[in-house]
């Protein structure tokens, strides 16, 4: 394996992502690009300032920062697993991205490693977003002496956890290849990651409460996850760095050796509904939605969460249902060929209703058993109804995101940008309306008006894209 080829592929993937993301949908306009960049930078800066103010106000000078850092250390694994799951699931169908490299004189191993390096840089970005604010605020409050502590408690465990997760993933890939079911990895890998999350969550909670108890009773708490912090305290930073380097030196060659040599394309569709549904236009939209890989992933996550909630006796409203409503992001682009091949693609409003209606059917199909399970656990119906209202609203919003930032095949980055911007806006609206202290009926009316605005812009966007497509054909 030549490291030069790996670095070249890594740069190629980044170049592709950056160029393709900033040239499509709403981001094609320079003003929109600048606004989106400013919004993202402002959100991160705001996150940092908020974190600094909260930590200074509640923890500064109390001596409580030490156990809080330990709790953060214990939860690093869980958060890195979340970041890894997010990036891994998003890039599961990045075949188009990998196909770019098929014309280059590189081996499969080099391609896998180049992609692994690219993926690790993305996981690093997400981790910086999660832990960056906490690390910066802690150092600003306690001074530069705290830098080694933050490194040993947050960043060293994060690196080792990422390497361990990568090793685990490639081992799983090898096992799937040996069992000749590598094509199904789109379904198996997210399920394994979801099981990992379900197992890590209670363990992280348990460890956090043990750390808090030990601090109150004045006992010293030791656990394998606190290894780097313990080494820093007992021996020094240099030894902690040495152990990190030794662990990485053992894990990286193991990852290179285990990474599969051959490339198996992923199965993208799962035909689970009868084909006679294609007799009607609405039926085709349902088939497109149900057969897609993303629906299967969201469904498997909800299934695992529901089983976990049942066994752990988590009496919570069915929040997990929201996952299925994010399918709206792909709804428009996945059904786009359908409207392009038809001589008469139909009216825009009717097409929009089919897009949203098919997602409504999916919500009902998944929602009935999940809500039933919540009701059986003792969650009152009044607590489930707002979740369902949020799901319907999310279907409309994510469909608009899918129209404004159309995700491409093999370019999942567009989805991240769109979803991130939408989340920021939705959170601002929710917090802003909370400040106004309106009556519930007024809040409902405002949210209904906002949803109608979302529908209006979605139809407008679809009409505009159809007009562009028509002109492209004529030209």
């Amino acid at each position: 394996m030549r490291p030069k080829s790996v670095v070249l592929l890594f740069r190629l993937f980044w170049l592709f992502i950056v160029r393709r993301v900033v040239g499509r949908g709403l981001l094609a306009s320079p003003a929109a690009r600048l606004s989106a960049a400013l919004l993202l930078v402002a959100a991160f800066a705001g996150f940092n300032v908020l974190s600094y103010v909260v930590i200074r106000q509640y923890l500064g000078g109390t001596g409580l920062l030490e156990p809080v850092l330990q709790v953060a250390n214990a939860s690093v694994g869980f958060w890195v697993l979340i970041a890894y799951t997010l990036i891994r699931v998003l890039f599961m169908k990045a075949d188009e991205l990998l196909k770019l490299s098929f014309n280059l004189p590189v081996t499969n191993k080099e391609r896998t490693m180049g992609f692994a390096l690219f993926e690790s840089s993305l996981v690093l970005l997400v981790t910086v977003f999660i832990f960056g604010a906490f690390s910066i605020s802690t150092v600003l409050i306690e001074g530069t002496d705290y830098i080694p502590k933050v490194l040993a408690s947050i960043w060293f465990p994060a690196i080792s956890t990422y390497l361990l997760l990568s090793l685990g993933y490639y081992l799983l890939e090898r096992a799937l290849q040996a069992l000749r079911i590598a094509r199904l990895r789109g379904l198996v890998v997210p399920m394994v990651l979801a099981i990992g999350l379900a197992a890590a969550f209670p363990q992280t909670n348990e460890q956090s409460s043990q750390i808090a108890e030990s601090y109150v009773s004045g006992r010293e708490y030791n656990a394998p996850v606190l290894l780097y912090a313990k080494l820093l305290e007992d021996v020094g930073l240099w030894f902690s760095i040495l152990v990190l380097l030794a662990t990485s030196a053992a894990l990286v060659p193991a990852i290179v050796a285990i990474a599969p040599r051959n490339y198996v394309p992923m199965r993208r569709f799962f035909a689970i509904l009868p084909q006679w549904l294609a007799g009607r236009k609405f039926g085709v939209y349902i088939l497109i939605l149900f057969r897609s890989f993303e629906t299967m992933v969201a469904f498997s996550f909800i299934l695992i969460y529901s089983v976990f909630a049942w066994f752990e006796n988590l009496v919570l409203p069915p929040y997990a249902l929201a996952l299925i409503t994010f399918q709206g992001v792909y709804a428009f682009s996945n059904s786009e060929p359908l409207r392009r091949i038809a001589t008469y693609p139909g009216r825009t409003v009717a097409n929009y209703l089919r897009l949203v209606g098919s997602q409504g059917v999916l919500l009902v199909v998944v929602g009935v058993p999940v809500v039933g399970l919540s009701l059986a656990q003792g969650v009152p119906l009044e607590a489930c109804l707002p979740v369902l209202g949020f799901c319907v609203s999310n279907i409309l919003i994510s469909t608009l995101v899918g129209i404004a930032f159309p995700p491409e095949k093999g370019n999942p980055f567009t989805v991240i940008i769109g979803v991130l911007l939408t989340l920021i806006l939705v959170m601002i609206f929710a917090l802003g309306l909370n400040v106004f202290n309106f009556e519930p009926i007024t809040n409902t009316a405002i949210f209904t008006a906002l949803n109608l605005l979302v529908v209006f812009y979605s139809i407008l966007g679809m009409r505009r894209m159809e007009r562009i497509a028509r002109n492209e054909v004529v030209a």
Partner: protein
Amino acid sequence: MKWLLRFIAGLTVSFVVTMIVVVTSFITTMFSASEMGVRKFGLFGALFFEPHEQADGATALEIGVSNGAPIAVVFSISLVFYVAVASVLERLKLHKKRLLQADKG
């Protein structure tokens, strides 16, 4: 139709800007209020935030809008700004189109 669309876009942009200003002011006010029972105001007296202690020792927060006028002013200024920018942009586009046509002719 074109003007109606522009008007709706203006309302949407102004609403988003107003919400961002309200939330930012609210967060700033919230973290500048540290004493119990003291009411702090933000956004030129539009928002208030007051932490007070309940009988059982828990801290209750009272938040809300004391004067809607500054918020309405923020909304109006952003609407006027949007309309002005949109009109200038439209004129510039028309001017560019005319120049291009004159160049061809």
